[in-house]
């Protein structure tokens, strides 16, 4: 029995690529926020390949009034930047960011994951709590993994919302990133002669006795 029931076939075979492209198009148009490939796959019929459909769709919208933009590992439809003049802007409230906040944001973006101490070292001044809070509230930064150094400080990284806001495909596309790296300006260079702090504090020792008390 090589012949399969056509109904069974339609149930288990993915729809044609053209149809998949339409589906991705509909889903992306309907959402104001970027949609990940995994989310697309979850909403499309079994066996669909949204990643390939996206390649076709992206090409289709090249040079049009809207385009398919990559935002981290997600995708969104956005208006072409050259048509911004047509849009009514009064609805969007762009809060004025302080100079400290803008610099802090840039330092996190270019040095991420980045601790508060590192931000302070680069700016040469204490980072106020409000500055970080403002960036967290805008959802442009979030907490990364703790650094495995003494004190286990929290780190900050930029978010998908940050990439979306500034029209970046990924943090690798930050302007001038390559040049800064090549110039060694993103290195963490300690002050000469400063003690490097005795490696990793072995916190394994601390509290051992306490742990094994019942």
């Amino acid at each position, binding site marked *: 029995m090589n012949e399969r029931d056509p109904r069974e076939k339609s149930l288990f075979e993915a729809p044609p690529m053209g149809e998949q492209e339409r589906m991705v198009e509909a889903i992306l*148009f*309907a*959402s*104001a*926020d970027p949609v990940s490939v995994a989310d697309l796959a979850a909403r499309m019929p079994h066996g669909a390949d949204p990643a390939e459909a996206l390649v076709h769709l992206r090409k289709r919208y090249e040079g049009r009034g809207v385009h398919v933009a990559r935002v981290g590992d997600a995708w*969104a*439809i*956005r*208006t*072409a*930047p050259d048509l*911004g003049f047509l*849009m009514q*802007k009064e609805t*969007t409230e*762009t809060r004025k960011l302080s*100079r*400290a906040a*803008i*610099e802090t*944001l*840039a*330092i996190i*973006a*270019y040095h991420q994951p980045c601790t508060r101490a590192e931000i302070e070292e*680069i*700016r*040469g*001044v*204490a980072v106020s709590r409000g500055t970080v809070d403002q960036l967290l509230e805008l959802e442009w930064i979030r907490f990364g993994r703790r650094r495995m150094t003494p004190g286990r400080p929290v780190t900050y990284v930029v978010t998908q919302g940050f990439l*979306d*806001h*500034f*029209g*970046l495909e990924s943090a690798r596309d*930050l*302007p*001038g990133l390559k040049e*800064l790296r090549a*110039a060694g*300006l993103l290195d963490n*260079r300690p*002050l*000469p*002669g400063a003690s490097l702090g005795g490696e990793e504090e072995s916190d394994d020792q601390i509290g051992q006795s306490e742990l094994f*008390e019942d």
Partner: protein
Amino acid sequence: MSDPTPFESDTQSVGERLAAEALIVDVDGFEGPLDLLLTLSRTQKVDLRKISVLQLAEQYLGFVNQAKVLRIELAADYLVMAAWLAFLKSRLLLPPDPADEGPTGEELAAHLAFQLERLQAMRDAAARLMARDQKGRDFFVRGIPEDVTRVRRVTYSATLLDLMQAYARIRTRDEFRPYAMDRDHIFTMEQALERMRGLIGYAGDWTDLSAYLPEGWGSDPARRRTATAATFAASLELAKQGRIELRQTDTFAPIAIRRKDT
């Protein structure tokens, strides 16, 4: 060695004096000593990589002196930087002491130049970032996002703990006290009362209160503390009810209790 004095009025051009005054007036506008150094470095009008750190240190120290003359209070970190720059200046000017193991003046100067260059680079990067097309200003999202209707599907969950508690509850046929981690090391007054009510009938003689601590609560300090507090509170309650008498021979001396015969 003659120390060149910065801001010598007779050698200053009008422009330099104006710049210096602007710095003084704006002192609150600086975001820390590094920011001030970066601003000062611009008067050298050279690439940051070719900057004269010695000259910069002198400019900074001159600025701090000027601020003192004008009785402007500088924040501590400006003064710390001034002290460090004075140290750097001495390192740069004096011949190196072969016995000294610390970094050379040149190394320290190179690091300061690096810090300034890095701060400038981050400022430029920030400016480029903000100059990008921004969402809601230059490009826009869908104005009528279509709501995704949600189809609810209910799944049931239970943990191993739920299962074991349920079984224990049935098998003991008792009101099962929910397991709560944080109460593991807390002995409540109710528990102490219940315990003491059962034991007090045997307390015909003065007995130290600590003897009433439940078993297993005496060794760990945290457990002993909570058990002692609860037992003490319970003994006060029993005394109030007239069931026991309390005695303490001296301040901070052990407290003893005995049954009150009625």
